[in-house]
């Protein structure tokens, strides 16, 4: 149910002008909720940022989620994270 909850919170934030990006492990639920911007990750429930103790992977996933902010819209924007999402730090 976490996925519905984050989608509904994201909607409230967006309606106040705060751009959101959401990680999802359950693409089909996020699609049903129509979460404004979401990055679907290939990991099990409970592992939204991939692996515990792996800051490099966690950072890459966060960067990929932030990259969705550049999508022109309209929402919902739902993209998949793959290991090819490599964006170096500025």
């Amino acid at each position, binding site marked *: *149910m*976490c996925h*519905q*909850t*984050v989608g*509904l*919170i*994201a*909607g*409230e*934030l*967006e*309606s*106040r*002008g*705060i*751009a*959101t*990006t*959401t*990680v*999802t*492990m*359950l*693409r*089909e*639920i996020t699609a*049903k*909720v*129509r*979460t*404004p*911007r979401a990055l*679907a*990750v*290939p*990991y*099990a*429930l*409970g*592992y*939204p*940022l*991939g*692996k*515990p103790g792996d*800051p490099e992977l*966690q*950072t890459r996933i*966060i*960067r990929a*989620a*932030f990259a969705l*902010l550049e999508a022109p*819209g*309209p*929402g*919902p924007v739902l993209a998949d994270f793959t290991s090819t999402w490599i964006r170096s*730090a*500025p």
Partner: protein
Amino acid sequence: MASLSDLSLKNRVFMATYRYRALDPVPFARPRKPLPSARVALVTTGGVHLPSQVPFDDAMKGGDSSFREIPSETAVETLGIAHKSDAFDQTGFRADRNLGFPLDRLREMAARGEIGALNGRALSFMGSITAPGRLVKDTAPGAAALLEADGVDVALLVPL
């Protein structure tokens, strides 16, 4: 990717028949600033709380839709986790809170200039909200108003 077929039969049946609330229309705000200038807030549904805060009520019918404010300088390993859902494996999150509440990662990104600033408070909700009426009418708007007052430009939301 997780899918409904990975869940226990009980959770699978529930989630397959549950009528999800859908955003319609979908609110969609363009970022006001480029990310290196933006104030970023973290929102989780991992049910984390400070040791000094009243934990979420995991037994509340329909789910506990309240939230906790977590100062962004908090050492994540000190946070309690009220989430007791059997729908997901909590081993990883309990070993490394950054897995679902990545304050350390966002602090690093702020220090490198990838984001403009990390907002002074992060927000923690509990998942497992099956009756989201109060969330939609009360607590989500209240949380959003706080972040709006903080001048937050971008929010990263992480479910567990």
